Each structure stands twice: as C-alpha cells, then as structure tokens.
C-alpha cells in the first residue's frame, strides 16, 4: 500500500556556532564531531532525512540534548535550518516568504507544547479561539468553533476558566484544542505529556489515540519516553547527538536495531509489547477448529491473556479481515520469555 508523503526533509543541518554556514561548507557539508569541537560549534541536527506519510503517527525519540526538539522546530521552521531542504505538500518550506509561511501555519499546521504555552490573560475559550482570532475570524464564528474543540477534548463547562485555574492535564487539553481549532493537516506535538504525572500521562495518551482515530491527522510526535513511543507510533526515528540513528517500526527497532546505540536503548523493552501477531504467526491457515480471530496488528502483550485462556489456536487476520496465519499460546509465551530469539 503506497501512501503519499506529506512532509519530507532531506539533508537538514542545524548548527549553532559563530559562522554555521561557512563552517559547513568548509567541511564539504559533512563535518565530524572533532570538527565541531574545534570550531566551538554544536551540531544540533546533523544531516536529517525523514519522510512522513499522510495520516501516520511519526515519533521522534531521543534523550534530552539529542536534537529532537530542534529537528521538529526545523520542520515547522520555528528554527531556520543551516542547510537542507524541507518539502511540505510539494512546496519548499525553507524558501517560502514570510507571508506564505504565515499562511501555511495558519491553515495547515498545529503545534502542542511541552509546557502548554497557554496565554495567561485569556480564558480557556479565548485561548482555544486564539489562532482564529489572529486570522481575523469573527468573534461568533471563532468562539463557536472553539467551543466545539473544547467539547471534543473533554473540557466542556470550563470555557470561562483561566489557565492557572486548571490542572496540568486540563491545561494540555486546552493546548490540544488550540492546536486543532484551525483544522490543520500536520500536527506537531513536542513532548506534550512529559510535564504530566504518569497516571495522567497514560490517560492523555489514550485520549490522543482516540482523537487521532477521529481526525486522521499527519502527526509528528516528540518524546523521550520509549514506552510512550512504542505505544503511539506507526514509525519511530531514534536520535542521538543530532543524528538520526534509525527510522523504523517499533517492532523492527527492537528486533533489528541498526546501531549499537539503538540496541542498547531497546534491550530492556519487553518483546511482547512490540511484537505483532503478524510477525510471529505461523503463515497459512490450515482447516480445523479455532478459538477465534485476532487482527494481525495487535501485539503479543495485547492478546496474551486471550491466547492463554483458549485451548485452541487463533486465526490471524490482515487489514482486509482475511485470515493469513495462525497463532497459539505457546508462540506468545516463546516471545515473552525470549525463547528462540538468538
């Protein structure tokens, strides 16, 4: 199945230092870590190549200082890249004039921030309506639309509260409402749940998945939490020191790490959480009795109880609901205890 590319960046560099452009040219566009140290420069993003498909959840994952926040700011042009090109819906974002860029941001992009970035002098309703106010939408229209969004994120009844009167989770719901009020195609979320308590975080992740099942946005999601990444992502880019180490599905990251760093990082991730039934099933569906059908994109961890309770194997279905293989409790347990892996 071929999906169209929504956002693509090629050879993007972001260098902080005295003369970043000249520095990059001097080293033929590929400076090494030693070069950076000598020039007192920092390569926050180094030669990033990313393709983000329409409708997918693309997670950029890395520890603090790995350049993930800088990369997402390059993608939204909050930060000017030192070199490279970024294509958004076939247009080059980096050569765009100010007026065009403002227009793209108003109509096509939404962003959620780690510390919510709500305006303290505006109510919940006014905050959510702010992007439309900036565009000059009439008060009634923008407030109607904002009211809808607030209801969607589950804050109905708090329209007239001020941000400081809300809990962290509620504030972030306002942030989400604001980022979606102009109905953008591309949705950036910069560590949206990192400032929240673990329990709230989990709740917000569920909420996020629910929203995405309704809205089908193209999403770039930043996190430093690998559990969060594998829970939400279609694909993950792992970053280290400004470089993208690997871009892959959660499953492949764990099973086939491309670099020692990724391996080290994924070592302690329980296989069952990332392994999908499709990958461990026995292909082919012989005639016989089955306990039931399971969609192939579920993970072992999602289904292990069902598998364990049934005495018979299950059929595994692909996206078109066609049976493509079978699976039983034994195979699931093999994954969980690591039997047969290496």
């Amino acid at each position, binding site marked *: 199945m071929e999906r169209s590319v929504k956002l693509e960046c090629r050879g993007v560099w972001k260098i902080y230092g005295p003369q970043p452009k000249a520095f990059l040219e001097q080293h033929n566009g590929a400076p090494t870590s030693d070069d950076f140290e000598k020039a007192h420069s920092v390569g926050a993003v180094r030669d990033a190549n990313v393709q983000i498909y329409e409708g997918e959840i693309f997670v950029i994952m890395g520890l603090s200082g790995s350049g993930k926040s800088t990369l997402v*700011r390059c993608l*939204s042009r*909050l930060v000017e890249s030192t070199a490279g090109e970024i294509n958004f819906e076939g247009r080059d974002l980096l050569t765009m004039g100010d007026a065009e860029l*403002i*227009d793209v*941001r*108003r109509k096509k*992009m*939404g*962003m959620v*921030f*780690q*510390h*919510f*970035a*709500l*305006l*303290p*002098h*505006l*109510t919940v309703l006014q905050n959510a309506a*702010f*992007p439309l*106010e*900036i*565009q000059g939408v009439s008060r009634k229209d923008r407030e109607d639309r904002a009211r809808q969004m607030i209801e969607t994120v589950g804050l109905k009844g708090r329209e*007239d509260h*001020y941000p*400081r009167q809300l809990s962290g989770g509620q504030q972030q719901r306002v942030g989400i409402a*604001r*980022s979606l009020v*102009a109905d953008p195609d591309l949705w*950036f979320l910069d560590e949206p749940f990192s400032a929240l308590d673990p329990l709230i975080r989990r709740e917000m992740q569920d909420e996020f998945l629910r929203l995405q099942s309704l809205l089908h946005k193209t999403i770039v999601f930043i996190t430093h939490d690998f559990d969060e990444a594998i829970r939400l992502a279609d694909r993950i880019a792992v970053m280290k020191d400004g470089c993208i180490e690997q871009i892959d599905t959660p499953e492949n990251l764990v099973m086939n790490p491309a670099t020692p760093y990724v391996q080290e990082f994924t070592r302690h991730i329980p296989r069952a959480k990332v392994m999908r039934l499709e990958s461990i099933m026995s292909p082919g569906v012989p005639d016989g009795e089955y306990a039931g059908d399971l969609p192939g994109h579920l993970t072992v961890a999602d289904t292990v109880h069902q598998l364990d309770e049934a005495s018979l194997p299950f059929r595994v279905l692909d996206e078109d609901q066609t049976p493509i293989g079978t699976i039983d409790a034994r195979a699931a347990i093999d994954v969980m205890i690591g039997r047969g892996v290496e």
Partner: protein
Amino acid sequence: MSRLFKFLTSGPRLFWLPLFLVTWALSTWSFALYKALDARWIIRFPKQYELPLDVWISCAMSWLVEEAHFGFFSFRDLTRFIAAVIELPYQMVRSLLIDGFSVGQGQQAIEIAPSISWIAIIGTMAALAYYAKNKALAWLAALCFAYLAIFGQWESAMVTLASVLIAVPIGVAGGLMLGILSYRHPWFERTLRPVLDLMQTVPVFAYLVPILFLFGFGPVSALVATVIYAMPPMVRISTVALQTVPEEVIEAGRMVGCKPRQLMWKVLVPTALPSLMVGVNQVIMLSLNMVIIASMIGAGGLGYDVLTSLRRLDIGGGIEAGLAIVVMAIALDRVSQAFAIRRVRPRPDPAHPFYQRYPLTSAALALTVVTTLLSLYVPAFRVLPEAVTINTGSIWTTMMEWINITFFDTFEAIKTFFLTSLLLPVKRFFAGIPWIWGILVVGIAAGRLGGWKLGLISALMTLFIAANGLWAKAMITVYLVSVSVLIASVIGIPLGIWAGQSARANNVIGALIDTLQTLPSFVYLIPVVMLFRVGDFSAMIAVVLYALAPAVRYAAHGIRSIDSELIEAGKVSGCTERQLLLRIKLPLAAPSLLLGLNQTIMLALSMLVITALVGTRDLGQEVYIALTKANTGQGIIAGLSVAFIAIIADRIVTALARNSQERLGIK
C-alpha cells in the same frame, strides 16, 4: 613586566594589606611631602593642565539654544513645539483636578466648567483601589486622599497629582517603546545600556540646567526632568519582561501564524503584563521622588511647598507638605502594586446592563457627576472650606522646638562622638590621598577584581575627575558614601538576616522598609536637618536612612533563598544555630549580600547629591552650585564625575559578586 602584571592581577593573598598600608602612608604624609619637596602638584592637579571641558559644554549649549538650525525650523522652535505638546494635556488635567476650565486671561477669566469635586476624586481613588485589590486597600486609598483634604493640602496635592498623571503615561509609554526596540534589536540594547547607566547615575541636578535652557522655567521643564529621571527603569524592566516571556509561548504565537505586530501586542506584551506593571509602579514612585527637586525648575504643588518651607526654615510647613507627599506616595504605590499582582477575572456577562457589569465605574461616574454639579451651588463640594481643615504646622513647630531644647545635649553628644571617632578620621584619610596614587590604586584594585579592561577604564574615569579639578570634592563624596554605606550595612545586614530567618520579624521589618522606600528622598532631609542642623553628620544620617532598604532586602532574600536541603544537611551534621548561620547561611548568601551592597552604594550616591542642600562640600555641592548659577558645563562635568564614581563602584562590586557566585557554582 609580565610578572609584575601577573602579581597585580592574580598574585598571592597578601595584596590588599600592603596596598592599603601604602595608601594610608601616602595619605598621612602627602601634605608633609608637598611641603618638603615644594611640589604642590602632589596634592593638587596642576591648574594649567585642567581640561576646559565645562566651558566647551556651556558654549555648545548656548550655540544649540541660540543658533542651531535645521533648515525649516530652529532648535528653539523644536523645543517650543515639544513644550507646547506637553503643556496642553498638563493644563487639561490640572483644570480637571483643581483649577477648573476658564476662558480669558487673569482677572477677566470666566469659568466655563468647574473642576471635579474633591469628594469625587477620593471616591475614584477608592474605586480604583477596590478594583485592583479589595476593600481594605480602598479604605487606605480613601483615607490617604481624605488626609490631603482635611489637612489643607488639597490644592497643592492636586497640582502634584496632575504632573504625576502626565509624567507617568509619557514615562511608561516611552519606556515600553524603547524596551520593545531593545528586545527586537540587540544592537539597540547594546547602545542604549550605557546611556541608561549614565541616566541612572548622573545626579538629577546636573541635567536640570540644560533642561532649563531648553524649556525655560515652568511646569514643562519639571515634567521633562521627571520623565527623564523616571523612564530608565521602565526601559530596563520592559526589556527584561519581554525577554523572560517563555520561548514556548512565543513559538505558540508563531505557530498559529502571528504577524510580528500581532506577536508583540497579542502575545508578548499581555504575557509580560504583570512584570510591566512593576515598571509602572517604579515610574510612579520615581515621579513622586522628583516632585520636590522638580519644583526647583518650576513645578508647583507639594514639592514647591516643601522647598520654600525648607528655605524659610519653616519647620511646621515643611513637615506638613512633606507628610502629604508621603501619604500620596503610599496611596499611589500600594494601588499600583496591587495592579501588578492583580489576577485576571472572568469577563462580565454581556447580557447584563452596563451598571451591573461595571458597578465600580458606574458608581465613580455617578459620584463625579453629582458632586461636581453640586459644587456649582455649594462651594464646599468643590474644595473643602479652609475653616474645616486642620492646620498642623504650628503643632509640628512647637514639638520640634521642644525636642530640640530638651534633647539638645544628647543630640550634640551623639553628633560629636560620630564626627570625631568615625567621620573625621575617614575624611582625613580620603582627602589626603594624592591624586596620582588615587588613580593608580583605583586602576590596580579594579583590575585585580575585574580584569585589566575594567582596571584601565576605572583609572581613566578617575583621571577624568582629577583632570577637571574635582579631585578634592570627589574624595569628600567618596568619604561620605563610604561611611554611610558602612553604617547602613552594619544596621541593615543583621536586620535582613533576622528578617530572613523569622517570619514574624520579616513582617515588621518588611513593612518598615517598604515605608522607608516609599518616601521621596528629599523627605529624609526634613527631620534630620531639624534635629542635627546642617553639616556632614546630617547628610550622613539622611543617606543612611535612604540607603538602608537594599541592604536589608538583599540580606533577607539571600538567607531565604538558600536551598533548604543544605540547611538540613547542616542540622543533620549537628550544627548549632550559630554555626548554621556562620558556616552555611552567610557564605551562601554572600553573592546576595554583595548585590545589596551595590544597590546601597548606588542609593547612597544619589541621596548624597541631594544632601548638598544641607551643606556638604562634595561633588553634590558642585552640581548644586552649577544649578544656582545656571552653568551647564560645570553641572554636567560634576554630574558625570558622580556618575563615574557610581559606575566604578558598581563594576567592582558586581565583579566581586560574580566571583563569589562562580566560587559557589551559582549562576
């Protein structure tokens, strides 16, 4: 050579003692040396080499006023235009508050509309206070303004209020604009910063003369001087307030597609509003601080009353008008502070009628209309009749006389003790230092503490003072500031430490310090002169009182902001309270104490210039003489000298604070 340089900048600890001993020896025997060698240049900068800078400045000034021309209009036209632009709104506000609107000149003037009734003004102040905070503040504001009416200060107070009401918006708007420019363009901030440094350290008196030349004697000059004096903190505060808006909020604004102007006025300024209000409060307080000084160049009102009373040595009148300024300052300060921390409240329901949505505005408007209309028929509604007001002047005079007669010997003994045991020895030490050695010592000390660049600049600034023939007066300034700062620290730091450790002490001391800081600097002079008459000792007391606040504040802040884990670590190790204080709290509070010292020095210097009025013989006096002689050059040179002393002290203490912060690993 390089070894010598190294010794000077980073040599062994045994550096300060020899330096001091040499300075002391030279100071003690400089006069003898001059006599023995018959070399007068040792103690005096040779007259033939003195720079004629003051003459040049005066000439440039008169050229500007009399001859400068920009094609279509002359410089004088320009200043007249500015004066007219300021004068018009000032007259409007003044008419509104007290004079009433009239047509015609002098005796033939016919009043066409009355001024607002005093009751309405009190009511409006109370409504503002209630809107900003609560009922208690409303009572405070109402009582303060009622005081002005009851004690017969109403007319002067309204004239003063009118100038505050004009100066503050100009200062705030101008400060905000410059702050926005500094925020947007780093180069602009870099150019502006030294200008602001100078504006805040050059004594006010120094620029009164050029303003007089440009705008003439009158309320406009006073307003211009007030704005120049009150604006710099607003510039700084707005720059910092905008810079501290969280990056994410700005990014959020950019991501929703704000244009630059939308970003500034819809995102940055509203988010920074609470900090900006702190700046507004500063502008108000500084404008009030200028009230008395501005009356030297033509402002009327309370300041003028104080000044004339002081000149006539009318003790009662001075105290009366001075207290009125204090009362007004307290009211305006508390209300504007309340606005700074005021929380946004929900918007009123637009379904309700106006008077229900905005009950305060409606009430104030109604009160204004009713009382002002009544004042057309009943004069008592316009201004409280004099027969009802209470005159306290004679009471104060009697009280002061009684105190002076009863305690004369005690005061005299205190004064003599301080003069002989502290002031005179320090004075002799500073006054004796030969100027060449003085320049060297300043350079060496600054260089060692803040690097060779600072050393060089400091030496050059000191040379500037000497080369303009102001060495002796500058040393008097340094001596008075040193003694005052010493005493202020000895009193202030323990108070601050106490306040930092005990919440109850903090309540009392905090309130005291708040009140001290609300008083316009000039007010300190009144009681001091009355008790101790003119001279260095009176000047010192006024300076100490004025400069006490930062010493207390920063000490308390330093103690309070110590990481509580460190104190717990000390307790767990078995420290006694005393050890806790000496071994943990004080060392950690050191950077904060030094910043407090810096502020204390700055305030002391600014106050010292004002004390020239009570007869010190320092640079302040030089500036004051220039003012009375209307000598632009002399005033500016002396003013710059004061500013240079302030800048040298500031840079040295800041370097000290930075060193100690680095040692402790605090940013």
